[in-house]
C-alpha cells in the first residue's frame, strides 16, 4: 500500500531537486523554473512532526525504544504505541525516497539483487534502500525492526515483503490475517478472527519484544484521541463538496491524511494537527478560495474530478501540474481512504472492545473492499461531489489496486453516465512515468469533458 506524504526533509522544489537521478524518466518530466512552491501552513507543521519522529527513530537504540515495522492500510499504530514501541512504515519510506528522487537507484539496486521488473516497486525500493544502508528520508539511519507486524490487509504483496525482510533481519514476525470483504460487508466471524489473532499472536509478540505488558486502558485512550482526529479529517475531506472546493482531495489530500495514516495516530500532536487543518480549510471556505496548488491558489475551478488510485511519487509535482494547468481540481479520491475509510461512520473506539475496534478498522480500509463496493463508492463520489469526470491512475506496481480497474471504470460510467479517463503510471519507478504521454491523455480527456459541458 502506498501512502501519504509530507516530505520529511525539504519539500522537493522543482528545479532544485530536478537534478537527474541516474537516467530516470523523460526529461520534460521535470517542471521548470517555478521559483517557489506554495504550501498550506499545515504542511509546514506536518514537516516538523515528521522530522521530529524520524529523529526519535534514529535514537531509538539509545532511548531503548523498540521498533515495529508495519503497513499503512488499517495500521495498528495505537497498539504499537500502547505497547511502548515506535512504528516504521516501509511504504512511506519508499514514497519519501521517490519524492527525493532516490527511488530510481533503490529499485535498480533491488533488481540487480534479482528482484523482477514485474513486481511491486515499493518492495524493490525498500529492499534497495536497505541494501544502501537504510537511510531514512531525513538522512538519518532507520533502526532495524524488533518486530515485523505483518498486518495483511488488502494486499498480497505485504506478505512477501515482510517474508523478505524477515530473511534479512531474522527478527520476530507477527502475522495478522485480515479477511477480505468479498461480499461487501464485515461479518461477526471476521471481526472475531482478527481480534483473536490480535490477542493470541500480535499482542504476545509485541509484549515479548518490549518486555512490557500491554495496557488496554492506554490503548482505549489512544483510540479515543484518534476518533477526534478522524472527525476533523472527515470534515476537511467533505469540504470539497463546496464549489469551488477549498481543497484538492488527491494531490493535497495525500498530505492531509499523512499524520493519521502513519505514526501519529492516537497522539496529541495528531489531534491538534487536524484541528488546525480544519481551521485553515474553514477559513479558505469562508473566503470562497480554491485549493493551494504548487503554483499558487487555483484561480478558476474549471473541472471537478474524482480520482481512483495512488499518485505517482517520482514526478508528483509534474503530475499535479498537468491538472493544475487545466484548472482541474480533485474533489474526492479513494487513495485518501487506504489507511482507513470513515465514510460509513466508522470511528475508533465505538466498538464494544478496543481489539474489536482495531479489527473493524483493519477490515474496513479501502483496498480490503470488494470491487463492487469500490464501484459504489466511486459512483457516490462522482454524484455527491458534483464531479464532471473521474480519472483512474492505474499503477503498474499494484495488483491490489489495479486489477479490475478497467471493469470498474465501465461500471462507474454506467452508474453515473460520466465517462472515465484512464492513465497508467507507477508509484516509485520513474521508468514508468511519461509526462508527455500522461499529459496527452489528460488533455484529451479534459477537452472531451469540456465539449460535453459546453453542450449541456
Amino acid at each position, binding site marked *: 500500500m502506498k501512502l501519504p506524504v509530507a516530505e520529511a526533509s525539504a519539500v522537493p522544489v522543482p528545479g532544485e531537486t530536478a537534478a537527474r537521478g541516474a537516467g530516470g524518466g523523460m526529461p520534460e518530466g521535470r517542471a521548470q523554473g517555478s521559483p517557489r512552491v506554495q504550501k498550506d501552513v499545515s504542511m509546514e507543521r506536518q514537516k516538523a512532526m515528521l522530522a521530529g519522529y524520524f529523529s526519535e527513530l534514529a535514537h531509538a537504540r539509545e532511548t531503548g525504544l523498540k521498533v515495529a515495522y508495519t503497513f499503512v492500510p488499517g495500521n495498528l499504530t495505537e497498539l504499537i504505541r500502547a505497547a511502548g514501541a515506535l512504528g516504521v512504515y516501509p511504504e512511506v519510506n519508499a514514497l519519501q525516497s521517490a519524492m527525493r528522487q532516490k527511488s530510481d537507484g533503490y529499485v535498480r539496486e533491488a533488481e540487480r*539483487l*534479482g*528482484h*523482477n521488473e*514485474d*513486481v*511491486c516497486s515499493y*518492495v524493490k525500493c525498500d529492499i534497495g534502500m536497505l541494501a544502501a544502508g537504510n537511510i531514512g528520508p531525513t538522512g538519518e539511519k532507520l533502526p532495524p525492526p524488533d518486530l515485523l507486524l*505483518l498486518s*495483511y490487509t488488502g*494486499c*498480497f*504483496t505485504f*506478505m*512477501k*515483503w515482510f*517474508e*523478505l525482510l*524477515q*530473511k534479512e533481519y531474522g527478527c520476530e*514476525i507477527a*502475522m*495478522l*490475517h485480515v*479477511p*477480505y470483504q*468479498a*461480499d461487501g460487508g464485515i461479518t461477526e*466471524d471476521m471481526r*472475531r*478472527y482478527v*481480534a*483473536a*489473532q490480535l*490477542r*493470541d*499472536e500480535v499482542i504476545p509478540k509485541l509484549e515479548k519484544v518490549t518486555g512490557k505488558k500491554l495496557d488496554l486502558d492506554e490503548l482505549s485512550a489512544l483510540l479515543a484521541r484518534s476518533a477526534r482526529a478522524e472527525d476533523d479529517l472527515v470534515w476537511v475531506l467533505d469540504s470539497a463538496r463546496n464549489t469551488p472546493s477549498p481543497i484538492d482531495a488527491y494531490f493535497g489530500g495525500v498530505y492531509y491524511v499523512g499524520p493519521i495514516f502513519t505514526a501519529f495516530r492516537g497522539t496529541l500532536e495528531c489531534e491538534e494537527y487536524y484541528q488546525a487543518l480544519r481551521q485553515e480549510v474553514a477559513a479558505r471556505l469562508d473566503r470562497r478560495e480554491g485549493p493551494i496548488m504548487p503554483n499558487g491558489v487555483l484561480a478558476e475551478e474549471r473541472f471537478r474530478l474524482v480520482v481512483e488510485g495512488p499518485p505517482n511519487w517520482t514526478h508528483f509535482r509534474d503530475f499535479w501540474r498537468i491538472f493544475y494547468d487545466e484548472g482541474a481540481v480533485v474533489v474526492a479520491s479513494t487513495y485518501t481512504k487506504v489507511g482507513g475509510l470513515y465514510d460509513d461512520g466508522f470511528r475508533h473506539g465505538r466498538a464494544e*472492545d478496543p*481489539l*474489536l475496534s482495531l479489527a473493524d478498522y483493519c477490515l474496513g480500509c479501502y483496498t480490503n473492499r*470488494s*470491487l*463492487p463496493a*469500490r*464501484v459504489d463508492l466511486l459512483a457516490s463520489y462522482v454524484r455527491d461531489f458534483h464531479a464532471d469526470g473521474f480519472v483512474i491512475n*492505474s499503477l*503498474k506496481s499494484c*495488483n*491490489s489496486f*489495479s*486489477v*479490475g*480497474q*478497467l*471493469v470498474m471504470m465501465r*461500471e462507474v460510467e454506467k452508474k453515473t453516465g460520466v465517462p472515465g479517463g484512464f492513465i*497508467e503510471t507507477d508509484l516509485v519507478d520513474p521508468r514508468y512515468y511519461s509526462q508527455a504521454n500522461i499529459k496527452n491523455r489528460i488533455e484529451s480527456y479534459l477537452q472531451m469533458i469540456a465539449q460535453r459541458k459546453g453542450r449541456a
Partner: protein
Amino acid sequence: MEAEAIVRRCEALYADLSLGSVREWKAAHPGRPAVGLLPVYVPREIVHAAGALPVSLLGGGDQIDIVKGDASFQSYICHLPRSMVELSLTGRLDALDGFVFPSTCDVIRNLSGIFQMTTRGKYIRYLDLPQAMDEGTGGAFYRRDLVALAAEIARLAGREAPGDEALAESIRRYDRNRRAIAALWAVRAGAPWLVALDETYLLMRAGAVLPVEAHTELVEAYTAAVAGRARKPEDRIRVVVVGAFCEQPPLGLLRTLERSGCYVVDDDLFLGARWVEGDVLALEEGRGSVAEESAAPVDGPKGGPHGPPGSDGGGDPYGALARAYIGKSLVASTRYQPDGRRGEDLVRRVRALKADGVVFAAPSFCDPALLDQPPLQKSLSEANIPFITFKYAENTGQFQSIREQAGTFSDSIKLWGEA
C-alpha cells in the same frame, strides 16, 4: 488401456474449452450443479460432498482469441484473468453454476469482484484461506468457513448440507486420488524416461474436469501402462520446475523443455490437485477437532495443535480438512511461510529427487511466484544447485529463447559433468 490412448483422451478434454465433459456429466446427473474453482487450491472434497461436480479452471491456454479479456486488464497483469473473463463472457463457462475464488493473490481476489459484476445470477464465492497458520485461530476460522461453503453449494444442488459421514466419504475418494498421483510421481522420479512431461501434465489436467473416481482410474491405468514401455533412458538432465502453479504454460513450452535435454522429475504445475501431502483422513487418527469457540474475542478455550485429543476419532472431517491445510499443505508461494523455510524445502526436494538443477518458470507479472524467486535462488546458490529462470504466459508462442536457455543448461551440466 494403452498409455497413448489415455493421453489422447486427456488431450481432448484439455482442448475442450467449452467444457463438453461437464455438460455431459450434468446431463447424466439432472439437477446437480457444477462449480468452477479457480487456482490454486480449493478443497474439492467439500464441493463433491455437497453433490456438485468440482471443475478446476486454469485459464484459456493458447487456443483462444482474447478480446474482452484484454479490454478488462492492463498489460502489466498476468494472462490468466484475461482468458477467464474471455471464457466467461463468450459463454464457454455456461455449464458452471458457480465459482469459488480462493485467496491466491490479489488478481484472483479482484477477479472475484469482476465475476460478481459480470456474471449475474451465478454463485460467486470468495474463499479466504487462512494465513494465520495456527489451528486455534486460522484453523477455526477456516473450518467455520468450510461448513458454510458446503452448505451453500448443497443449496445449489437443492440438498441438505453434507453431514460428517458424507464428507468423510468424499475425502476418502480424494485420498485415493492423491495416492494414485503419488504413485505416478514415484515413476517420474525413478524412471522419468518412461513418462513425458506433457503426458503427466495432461493427465493431471484431466482431473480438472473429470469426476474424481474416473480420474483416479485413469491415473492408475496410465501408471500401470507406462511401466511396460520399452524405452531407454536418454542422456538428459533431471530438473524440477518451480513457479508454474497458477497460470499454466502452453504444452509447447513443456515439450520444448524436455526436447532441449531435460527430464522434469517434479513440477508445481496445477499444484492445487496435489496440495495436500498424504491422506487427509489418516491424519485424523487420535486427533481432536478444531475447537469451535476458540476465536471468541478475549477468553474462551483455546484449541491449537496441542489441544486435547478428541473423542470423535476422525469424526470431524471438516476439521480434518482445516488441519490438513494448516499442517499438511505443500510449501506454496501463496501461503505465508516465514523463517526461510521455502528455501530449505526446495533444496531438500531437489536433493531427494537427485535433480541436477531447477527451472524457474513463472508467469509474467505473477507476484507470488516472482517475489519468491530471489530468496529461493539464494538458497539454491548456497547449496550449489544450478538453476535457470524464464517467464512465460499461457499463450506464449515463441519458445526459441527457452530452448536456448534450457539447452545450454543441459549442455552445461552434461558436457562437463562427465569430463
